[in-house]
């Protein structure tokens, strides 16, 4: 994925995946290719699966928003298509988007009279997800966002505002900076 503010971040030390091409540790609940014309269907599928994972309606919406922004980034700033995977493991719901990395000129967003703020979608991802990791390599980009489901992991990760250490703090996550242009 080639967002407009590329980050130098390499493979995260605390990635939820053991290796770049390894399969998720538990059976996938969703694996769906997407392009510009299938974002609506992608959101519907993610919503159904996130709800089945036991998340609240707010967190289901948040997972859908994150999935959309990651996919939209691949559509607008990347090759124009990609693959989304969603799975649950150890009290967390993982939402992963991968693309081949090469930006496609034809996929670029049509300019409108209203100015856009590059990187804003990925800033939202960093704000909403409990943990985000970015893995950029020669064969493309993999972004993985995770959300506490309140299952085996115990206390939800998004309660971190209480200033207590939790798994989210140890994660290689997107900075929660005030700038909408914060890169993912």
């Amino acid at each position, binding site marked *: 994925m080639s967002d407009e503010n590329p980050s130098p971040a390499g493979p995260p030390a605390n990635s939820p995946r053991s290796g770049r091409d390894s399969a998720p540790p538990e059976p996938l609940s969703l694996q769906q290719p997407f392009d510009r014309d299938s974002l609506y269907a992608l959101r519907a599928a993610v919503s159904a699966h996130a709800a089945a994972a036991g998340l609240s309606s707010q967190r289901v919406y948040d997972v859908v928003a994150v999935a*959309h922004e990651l996919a939209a980034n691949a559509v607008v700033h990347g090759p124009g298509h990609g693959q989304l995977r969603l799975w649950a493991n150890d009290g967390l719901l993982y939402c992963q988007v991968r693309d081949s990395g090469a930006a496609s000129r034809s996929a670029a967003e049509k300019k*409108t009279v209203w100015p856009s703020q590059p990187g804003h979608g990925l800033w939202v991802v960093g704000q909403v997800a409990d943990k985000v990791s970015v893995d950029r390599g020669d064969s493309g980009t993999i972004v993985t966002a995770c959300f506490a489901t309140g299952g085996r992991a115990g206390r939800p990760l998004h309660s971190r505002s209480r200033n207590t250490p939790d798994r989210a703090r140890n994660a290689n996550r997107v900075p929660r900076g005030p700038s909408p242009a914060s890169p993912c």
Partner: protein
Amino acid sequence: MAADASTQVTELTADDHACLTFGETEELFDLTAAFVRDGLAAGLKVMWLSDAGPGIAVKELTRRGVAVEPALSAGQLAADGCEERFLSGWSFSADAAVGWLSGQLAASRQQGFPGLRIAVDMSWALRPVSGVEELPRFEEGIAAALSGTTASVLCQYDRERFDPVTLASVGGFHTRSVAAATYYADAKLRICRQYAPPGIRIAGEIDFQSAEPLAQALAEEVRLDGDETVNMASLAFIDARCTMMIAEAVRTMAAAGRKVTLRCPPEVAPGFARLGVADVPGLRLVSADE
């Protein structure tokens, strides 16, 4: 007078016989509220005969800023079901209905009102009512009864439920065709103007691919004066791009001294709060249920 293409509900005048088509209940209530509000403001007698029933009608008008209770108490406003007025059980007679309308016009004059406005939800005609084939004759009769009077009638047809043949058969008897000004509409998204309270309404799911019509709608609202409502009560999804666009537009409106209300479902609200919208003076972020 032939029906013209796209009159705004706020442009209707005395002796208009307008045909309003709507696609969803929210749109019906919005356009009706504007019709009722403007009629009351002009001192006219106003009646709304609806399938919704008096209780819901009063609630929906109140929610949209119409001062319902004082108008009801003063006899200026009446909200009833169609059955009590011009249907007789399960049967309909065009002559009887037009006669009822003429009687109402005379009664409103006797009560001292300078004119009469009646909105009629025509959904009753979708039920197995005998005499429903007289519908075109009813519309023709209304057109004749209203000519040269100070009464206007707004017939409300659900364009999803009435077949095109019926709509076409009654269309010619109306002086105007009324619908919400629409910036964009497909199966997934609708962006249209809202009339009561004034603003825009966005329903369905919206993302960056619909940024162009959203920009057009917002740009028009920015250029207007007065209080503004962005009604997203039926919005199931909005992406970061469109959230940012709306936030920028309403900040501009609030900076110009306009009171702005963003109405959205609880799941959508944090996206606006994250951009600091809730802290802007003059700007209210309210739940869809309020």
